[in-house]
Each structure stands twice: as C-alpha cells, then as structure tokens.
C-alpha cells in the first residue's frame, strides 16, 4: 500500500494512524474536533478504498462511482471501528468497504435495468415461492403465484421474465467470493457420489474450474438428481438464483468444452 511505503512525505503510516482511532473514540459525539479527525482519517485511508474499488472495476460500473461507493464504506468503517476490540483498522475496513461495493452492485443491477413495479413484483414472487414450495412439495406455477398474491398472472409472468433476463453477471461474480465461505462445508473437494458416475473423468477436471458454489449447484442438479427448489433450500438461496447460476454455469462450461 502506497501509504505505508511513504515515509518521507506528509502522509502518516497506518501504524502512526492507529492511536488516532482511540482519540476519535474518546471524543464526544458533538465535539467539533471529531469532524476534523474523521476527515484526516478518511484522507489517510483513501488509497485503501481506491485499491478495493479497483478490484471491482471492469464489471460494468465506472471506477469513479466505485471509488465513491468505497469511500462511503470507508467512512462507515471509521465511524463504527472500535479500537478496543483488538482488530486493526484495515482488517475491519476491508470487509466493510467491499460489503458496501457489493451492495452497490446489487442495488444498481436492479435499478438500472428493471422497472420499479417489476422489481416489487419480483420481491413478492420470491416471498410467495418460499411460502408455497413446502406446501406443494414442488415449485409453484405462475398461476399459483398469481392467485396466492392476488395479482394478474401476466404481471407474475412479467416478474419472472425479468428474473430470467436480469443481468446478474456483476452481482454473481461478487457472490463467488462469498460462496467458498458459505458452502465450504456443504460439499467436499471430492464428491463420493460423483466418483461413481461414469462421466467423472471428463467432468471432474471441468468442475474443478468452477467456484465452489457453482460446482455444488451443478453437482446437486446433475449428479444427485435434486430439483432446483431442493437445491435452493439446501444451499440457502432462492430458486430463481439457482436457475440463473445453472444457466450461466452451463454456458461457461460449454465455452470451455468448445475451447478445449
């Protein structure tokens, strides 16, 4: 990080900054020095925000916007950081800032491309799917969703179309990074049932190229015979999300097969 390497300039190192958090925490909410100190800390850690923003570049959002979002995350991190917890600020700030950037992708992926009504319908559909699936013991139909929600079936279809069409590329890319944490225990490196499948020799290397979550979803659907809804409840995401993951992952595998 450029700040820590800069010992000659005016910028303080991260170590030098550490006591300032204790100072900030010690100031009363309405103390005028608070704003000043906060501004100094924001300026000092801006390179960190920029570095993190740059990691999410080339995903359809302008770098400037990302830096701005990262800065919002940084300010939030400075405000919420508790120096007594024994964690250093960078360790606390990195997940806070990346969380803010992820939220930005998630929100803008919707707001840019999907009309408000459709977005609301989609949210209602998601809730209805979660309610109806256990009772029906299968995924509901658009007609069942419509009568459950008391909406015209065409509006439900519109919401579903958006769900299929909605470009979640940037969002899902971000989710990859979480997937290993949430799914690490769901599926071991070598899947015993997959071992018994004839296709294993060709499929295993291919599946290894996938992020953990994608691999889990593909294996459960195509080698364990689970339905999308069953996978959704097992993995803890929505059926629509499983649908998108499958669709996108298969396309990706297809490209690899063709390239190879």
């Amino acid at each position, binding site marked *: 990080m450029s700040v820590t390497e800069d010992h000659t300039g005016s910028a303080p190192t991260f170590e030098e900054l550490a006591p300032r958090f204790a100072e900030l925490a010690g100031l009363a909410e309405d103390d005028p020095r608070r704003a000043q100190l906060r501004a100094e800390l924001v300026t000092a850690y801006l390179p960190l925000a920029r570095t993190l923003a740059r990691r999410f570049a080339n995903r359809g959002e302008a770098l400037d916007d990302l830096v701005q979002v990262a800065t919002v995350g940084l300010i939030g991190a400075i405000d919420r950081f508790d120096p007594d917890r024994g964690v250093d600020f960078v360790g606390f700030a990195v997940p806070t800032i990346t969380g803010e950037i992820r939220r930005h992708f998630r929100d803008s992926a919707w707001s840019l491309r999907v009309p408000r009504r459709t977005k609301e319908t989609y949210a209602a559909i998601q809730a209805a799917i979660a309610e109806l699936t256990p009772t*029906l013991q*299968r995924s509901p*139909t658009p007609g069942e969703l419509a009568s459950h929600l008391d909406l015209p079936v065409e509006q439900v279809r519109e919401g579903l179309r958006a769900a299929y069409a909605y470009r979640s590329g940037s969002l899902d890319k971000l989710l990859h990074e979480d997937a290993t944490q949430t799914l690490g225990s769901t599926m071991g490196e070598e899947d015993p049932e997959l071992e018994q499948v004839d296709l294993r020799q060709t499929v295993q290397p291919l599946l290894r190229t996938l992020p953990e979550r994608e691999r889990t979803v593909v294996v459960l659907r195509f080698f364990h015979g689970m339905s999308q809804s069953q996978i959704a409840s097992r993995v803890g995401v929505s059926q629509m999300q499983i*649908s998108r993951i499958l669709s996108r992952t298969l396309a990706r595998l297809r490209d690899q097969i063709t390239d190879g």
Partner: protein
Amino acid sequence: MDRPSTVEMRVEAAPEYLIVLRNVAADLAMGRDFDLDSISDFRIAVDEACAILLRLAEPKAVLRCLFHVRTDEIRVHVEVPCSERPVIAQDTFTWHVLTTLADSVTTNVTEAAGHSAGFLASIELTKKPVSAATE
C-alpha cells in the same frame, strides 16, 4: 391428446441468438403454467440443445426451432444444416445435462438431398411439468 399449437422460429446459427430461443421457450412454458423448476429446466434444455447444434452448423446456417405446445407437454425440434456428416455425441457431460433436464431427448441426422449443405442435424426434446403429475 389435445392438438398442439405450434411456434416456429428461424435464427442465424450464432450464439447471440440463443437468448431469444431460450426466452421464447420460457415464455411458452409459463403460458402453459408449468411449475418454476420445469420452466427453468426447459429453458436451459433448449439452450443446451441449440448450443450443441450451433457447433455442428455450417457457416451462415439458419437454426430452425419448432415448438409444439400442448397442455401438459412441450416438444421442441431444433435443426441445423451441416456441411459434413455431424456426430452428436451422447457420452458427454452436455448430453447428460440435456437428458437430465428434459423428459426425453432424441437426435437425428439426415442427408439433405438437393441442398447445398449435405446434412441436417436435429435434436428433439420434450418437457412435462412436475406440476402436471400432482394435479
């Protein structure tokens, strides 16, 4: 059995048109009130079938896609002209995916006599919704 209504589409055999075909597939399945799992499986199956044929297609070929829609079943026939005798491999992961997603899958290769292209490769698949079984 009820008489099927038919939807036919012809698109350039290029990957960028797959989205059109899979969205039509999803729309037809939604229109027949398939359950969501079946809609999605069907959508992906059509995409996979078309993708298999794209790889076999001769340059500038037109992919023809016919949907026969019945109350509780949609049958799709996709075909593409090929300049060389095409082989649709059935020991691949893609094939495994296709047969998992659809209720039945068949392939056919015919010699297209009098055509500039020598052969016609086709895949036909059917999908019945899970919801049909529980009604």
